């Protein structure tokens, strides 16, 4: 076992999100809606050396297996991420993230005049386009700093 792998301990059961772009680990947790209050064991490694990415982040969530649709949203900020499902210390499933067609309820629209910001009973919805996402209601396009638009609720 190499030195850098030891920085984040192995988990018995759960999900390891590997090859996350350096510095994005906390945004990954935010996207997944994990803030510690669920009582899950969560380990985060940031800017650890990586052969493929130079530096990468690693997120380990114990006792929870994340579904493909949950993790696909991560592709918006970490397109190289890999998802490992762990059972009894063994990797039983290894997947890449795919870009989803739409993202519902995760991002808030930066257009303050959008109906999704008007206290109506409607969730935000964005279509994933070539180099960003687009509000399905008002058409506003977000290209940069997607993580800044993650809805904290």
């Amino acid at each position, binding site marked *: 076992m190499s030195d850098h792998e030891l920085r984040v301990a192995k988990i018995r059961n759960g999900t390891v999100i590997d090859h996350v772009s350096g510095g994005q680990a906390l945004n990954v947790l935010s996207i997944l809606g994990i803030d510690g209050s669920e009582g899950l064991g969560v380990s985060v490694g940031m800017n650890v050396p990586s052969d493929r990415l130079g530096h990468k982040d690693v997120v380990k969530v114990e006792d929870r297996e994340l579904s493909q649709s949950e993790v696909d949203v991560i592709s918006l900020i970490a397109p190289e991420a890999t998802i490992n499902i762990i059972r009894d210390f063994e990797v039983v499933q290894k997947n890449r993230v795919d870009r989803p067609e739409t993202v519902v309820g995760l991002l808030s629209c930066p*257009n303050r*005049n*959008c*109906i*999704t*910001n*008007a*206290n*109506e*009973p*409607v969730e935000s919805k964005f279509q994933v*386009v070539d180099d960003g996402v*687009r*509000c*399905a*209601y*008002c*058409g*506003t*396009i977000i290209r940069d700093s997607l993580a800044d638009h993650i809805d904290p609720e």
Partner: protein
Amino acid sequence: MRQDHLISASQLSRADIEAVLDRAAEIDADPAAWAAAHDRAVLGLCFFEPSTRTKMSFETAIKRLGGATTDMGSVESSSVKKGESLADTVRVVEGYADALVLRHPSEGAAKMAAEFVDVPVINAGDGAGQHPSQTLLDLYTIRENVGLDDLSIGIMGDLKYGRTVHSLAEALTNFDVRQHFISPESLRLPRGVRFDLHQSGAQVREHTELDAVLPDLDVLYVTRIQRERFPDESEYEKVAGEYQIDAQTLTAASDDLAVMHPLPRVDEIDPKVDATDHATYFEQAHNGVPVRMALLDSLLEDDQ
């Protein structure tokens, strides 16, 4: 039209547009034949912002089809004043009407409303978003005057917040049209609309001055630059003055140029232009009735 609602011009194909315009021409030729076409229909009017032309022409359109309106009235006198959500308002009015016409200050309001009701929703303006029924009457007017193919159109004024502009630009991508957008730098088309035009492969050019492009145009579509879009009065006066036209401006234009405007105008078209052959904006406003009759006929027909 195969649509359940009319929310955005981007949902309209060339065939959809031509079907409505052809029907409007039939109605225009013999309005009396349509006097009982929808004699049991009730149109719900939900205007959360002031309107003269759009609201009155929808009212006239449904009445000339034999139907009637039910109107929520002004925001000040309605349950909106008590804090009712738009989602609740449209679900209530749905029970009173066979179709809803909605104008609202928030972008995306009509799309959201359509998700909450089963009757057809017509977007009559959502903030700085879309105004697709205006576009249909704009296209009808263009077709009647100069035709819709092999056309050069200049669209001038507030392109950023002008919802009539956004809808018209997107609908024109269905035709062989060269679109010239003329505006101050600060009021260029928004990124979302430019994205759609780019995706559709439209022939688009952007300008800050009218002079260079005016002689090549078949249509000049003028919109109002609003005072409230500028941080101070002097900046507004300076910019707005550059995008006003008068009879002198039009001496450089082709004799056949049609000058259009969704109205109301303030001072962007000098009243002396009204007497020239270029002035097409009152004809355009009058076309609101047959085109909206055709649109209502299409949506109410599909709903039966």
